[in-house]
């Protein structure tokens, strides 16, 4: 069962369904009756991406087409915007390979920009050599009719540093999956996410981190706000293999449900085979704190303003963790615009 096989073989039966435990809340098989025909090349203008001004190189993949290799030589620093664009109602799949040499730095700003009722898959293979550092900021703006699956396989080396923040408004079905192979060796990993969902949007943030060696550090914080009939999904799994002692892993997921018909599903998992570890996860789901709302209104704020302020502060905690200042402000503006709407 894989999206890759389904698109390649044009076989709808190979799409993952809710019977597959890892996809129980993101059922593609039940949603897609007939697999779309392969997407045609798109010749129109795709405009400017939100991060284009911050980088020295822009890679644009339209309907699965285009060059997609990023290679940062040892010791160098690169600023790259990766735009994954979908247009129309077809199915397409793109592959991206990213290699970051020893001691090199990569600032990767990735966007998903969609229009239409497409089925899009993006596979990313990201490898970090020793002491390499990557900050990946993903802004996913799929269309309300689009089905999008992004799957990244990240492989870390000792003393590497990988920090990721995913910001999404969802799609008809959208899954952003990150699998990290963590060798320990004082490598640092941060996996964050923000989902702001309205109408019938669906977003699924899935992460799997496997610690294989001594002294690994993982921190995760995901926050979401859902309204209308939207559905937010968070699945996080941290695996600590036998012998991966002195692993320190923390995972947090917190969601606000702002309407009666919205839904949040979460599964924060720990799978531990070593005893000298400190692992914890926390998960909360609920409405906006009525007391805080009352307090803000009492200070003279209209209710709508008070709500926007409180929800912005709620997700702001994740956005604050983005290292690169300009990218952080792009995401902050994006969140404010959606929460004040």
């Amino acid at each position: 069962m894989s999206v890759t096989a389904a698109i390649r073989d044009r076989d709808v039966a190979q799409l993952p369904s809710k019977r597959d435990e890892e996809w129980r809340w993101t059922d593609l098989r039940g949603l897609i009756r007939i697999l779309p025909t392969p997407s045609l090349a798109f010749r129109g203008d795709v405009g400017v991406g939100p991060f284009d001004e911050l980088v020295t190189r822009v890679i644009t993949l339209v309907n699965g087409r285009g060059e997609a290799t990023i290679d940062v030589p040892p010791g160098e620093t690169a600023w790259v915007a990766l735009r994954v664009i979908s247009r129309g109602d077809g199915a397409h799949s793109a592959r991206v390979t990213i290699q970051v040499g020893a001691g090199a730095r990569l600032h990767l700003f990735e966007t998903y920009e969609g229009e239409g009722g497409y089925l899009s898959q993006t596979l990313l293979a990201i490898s970090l050599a020793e002491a390499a550092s990557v900050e990946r900021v993903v802004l996913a703006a799929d269309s309300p009719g689009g089905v999008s699956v992004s799957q990244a396989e990240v492989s870390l080396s000792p003393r590497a540093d990988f920090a990721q923040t995913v910001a999404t408004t969802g799609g008809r079905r959208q899954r952003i999956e990150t699998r990290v192979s963590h060798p320990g060796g004082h490598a640092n990993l941060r996996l964050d996410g923000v989902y702001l969902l309205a109408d019938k949007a669906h977003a699924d943030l899935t992460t799997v981190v496997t610690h294989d060696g001594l002294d690994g550090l993982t921190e995760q914080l995901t926050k979401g706000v859902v309204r209308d009939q939207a559905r937010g999904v968070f699945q996080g799994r941290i695996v600590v293999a036998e012998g991966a002692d002195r692993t320190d892993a923390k995972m947090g997921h917190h969601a606000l449900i702002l309407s009666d018909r919205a839904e949040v599903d979460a599964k924060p998992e720990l799978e531990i085979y070593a005893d000298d570890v400190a692992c914890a996860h926390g998960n909360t789901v609920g409405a906006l704190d009525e007391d805080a709302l009352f307090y803000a209104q009492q200070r003279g704020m209209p209710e709508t303003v008070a709500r926007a302020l409180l929800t912005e502060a709620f997700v702001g905690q994740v956005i604050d963790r983005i290292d690169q200042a300009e990218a952080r402000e792009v995401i902050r503006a994006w969140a404010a615009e959606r929460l004040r709407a």
Partner: protein
Amino acid sequence: MAAVKQTVDHVESLEKYKHGFVTDIEQDFAPKGLNADIVRFISAKKNEPEWMLQWRLDAFERWLAMDEPDWAKVSFPKIDYQDSYYYAAPKAKVGINSLDEVDPDILETYKKLGIPLREQEVLAGVIGSPRYAVDAVFDSVSVVTTFKKELAQVGVIFCSMSEAIREHPELVKKYLGSVVPVSDNYFACLNAAVFSDGSFVYVPPGVRCPMELSTYFRINAENSGQFERTLIIADKGAYVSYLEGCTAPMRDENQLHAAVVELVVLDDAEIKYSTVQNWYPGDPETGKGGIYNFVTKRADCRGDRSKVSWTQVETGSAITWKYPSCVLRGEGSSGEFYSIAITNGRQQADTGTKMIHLGANTRSRIISKGISAGRSSNTYRGLVSAHPKAKGARNFTQCDSLLIGKHCAAHTVPYIEARNGHAKFEHEATTTRLSEDQLFYVMQRGLSQEEAVQLLVNGFVKDVLQELPMEFAVEAQKLVAISLEGSVG
């Protein structure tokens, strides 16, 4: 410190598995294997009415069409369902009225069991023995039910399931299978087809059951699966506390235990269900033998403001696979789940709970403490869900895992599904090992390493132990210590 001293003394007095002995009494076996004729045989053996036989046969039909589930984080050789005995009764004695008629060997067995409950005193008729009503299930057949008269005076029905089928068919027909439907899952379906006996409790409206009800199961016959079926109904405003304790003799062949427990709670009623499970866990070195404990336990809080509390101490069994659940249907109903699961040697446990919030203002609380030692694996798996109508639903979950040793595993797999904007769910989990600092401190105060571990572990599980009824709490504390024997050093 008295309790700790007691624990230590108890551990010292212990040889390996204390309850590993076999009582040799004449068994009345059904032939090996499973088919419709065996189901008929069991039904006939128990003099069941036709409707019950039909119910069983229907379940058996459905079971044939089902596949054995494999999603739990446990592994075991494939079970050959045709290689087991599905019915073993102690040699039938018609109409046991007094304890004198009970097979002396059985009484001897109770004596050997020692502490778990004080039933043997009750069974032996010791004057001034504590007032527990015991429905002892000895390899599938309820041998004797004490205190039945006293309970009858307040209208409480406490008897074996087979008796309930004969004496109270209207209640059984109304409630049996209404919480755990026949085809709910593979093992529950198998149970529905071949269940041998179990306990039945009905507490009438407004009655507070005057004593703790207790039962315990003991798997005795070689290769005989035990399939109890328990049904407890608390009518409007009623209260009952039910204790279940288990021990089983040492055995080489794996034994299958697939019980079903159904609780029905009506308006303003409350059921407290406590379990201490101490079945043979298999050989600590090889993992050979040991009980497969695949149990379906579910409570249906049908009434408004009803309440269910599950407390479990799981220390035994080679494989434990159970999720005592609460369906919170009634408005303002609440569910609680307090669990200690300890695995050592080669044991595997996949256990947790489901809190399904259907009604408005329903509340639930989950406290789970898992301890893994040796080469064992311990998984907490739980579901908390709020449906769109469950406005104001509230859940708090805390699951902590403690690892003792380099080769054990602890997993936490919580599922959280919130489908409305007025539910509030909180979940927190931690996984750690015994703190070196604390161990050092305690040992510095003069305790041996083993004692120090016991003390710290007892502290770790205290939140749950204090939820147990008094008479279980002391026993459970000892059990915790015994289960972790030899896990350090």
